[in-house]
């Protein structure tokens, strides 16, 4: 009975979708603001990756909101899972020697790769969120391979708080120097080099640290027994 009502509702939704999708032909350029960002992006911000300049410079305030939402989710998860204390203790077998050695060997390489991605966010595809996710995958590998090690709480909280603080301080410095929050006040430099695009690399490094330590902290909270 419930399945039939659900399929009926889905057919109505599908009909509505098809009617509106027929008016959006695939592949035609539509919004004019995109053309403005593509043509003036390199001159106004200095970053060669246009998506990076949209995320950090033109729409930087939305990125601040998104970092806040991620922070609230991590805090909520820590608060919900710590009060319980009812987890049964399971004996964890230590991993085999091959897995243990392989994980210890791969972990610094993954960290270096993730750092490369968020440092070069304004030159190549990538950025803070992708690099942070790769760093969190490196920590997940450590949890699966070498099960007796954990990241220290103090270092994780310090990295996360410093990342958020650097982002906010950069925005407030822009307010101090130019009159706008998150104004790009550092010199733009020449395109295609590492030290270009003003405050964009600094903000992306802060976001990379913050997202990486936050996702690793989420996995740490879920694995821990009590």
């Amino acid at each position: 009975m419930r399945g039939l009502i659900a399929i009926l509702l889905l057919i109505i939704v599908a009909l509505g979708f098809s009617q509106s999708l027929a008016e959006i032909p695939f592949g035609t350029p539509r919004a004019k603001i995109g053309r403005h960002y593509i043509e003036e992006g390199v001159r106004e911000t200095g970053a060669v990756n246009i998506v990076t300049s949209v995320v950090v410079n033109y729409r930087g305030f939305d990125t601040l909101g998104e970092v806040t939402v991620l922070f609230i989710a991590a805090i909520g998860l820590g608060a919900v899972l710590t009060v319980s204390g009812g987890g049964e203790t399971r004996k964890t077998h230590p991993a085999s020697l091959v897995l243990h050695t392989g994980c210890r060997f791969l972990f610094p390489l993954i960290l270096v790769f993730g750092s490369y991605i968020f440092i070069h966010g304004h030159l190549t595809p990538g950025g803070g969120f992708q690099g942070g996710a790769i760093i969190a995958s490196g920590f997940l590998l450590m949890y699966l391979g070498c099960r007796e090690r954990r990241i220290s709480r103090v270092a994780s909280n310090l990295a996360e708080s410093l990342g958020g603080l650097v982002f906010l301080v950069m925005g407030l410095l822009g307010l101090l120097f130019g009159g706008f929050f998150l104004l790009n006040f550092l010199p733009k430099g020449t395109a295609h080099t590492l030290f270009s695009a003003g405050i964009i690399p600094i903000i992306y490094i802060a976001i990379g640290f913050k997202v990486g330590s936050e996702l690793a902290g989420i996995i740490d909270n879920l694995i821990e027994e009590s």
Partner: protein
Amino acid sequence: MIFIVSFLVLLMLVGAVAASVFRDLISAVIAAALVSLLAAILFYLLHAPDVAMAEAAIGAALTAAIFIIAISRTKRYEE
């Protein structure tokens, strides 16, 4: 080219239906990770490399990992 894209979209839809039908929850999670991975390939074919990288790192690896950790703390089979 259009045949490759059609094949990938068909595989993605089959994976989503499989995630709905499987009773073993770990198999359903792996089918959902397959959907995320094929969506990452389609993002790349739509000329969006940043989004493809984010979806592959976050959707296919971290989401499956936190699901499996949560399933290991609750029941494995759907009732």
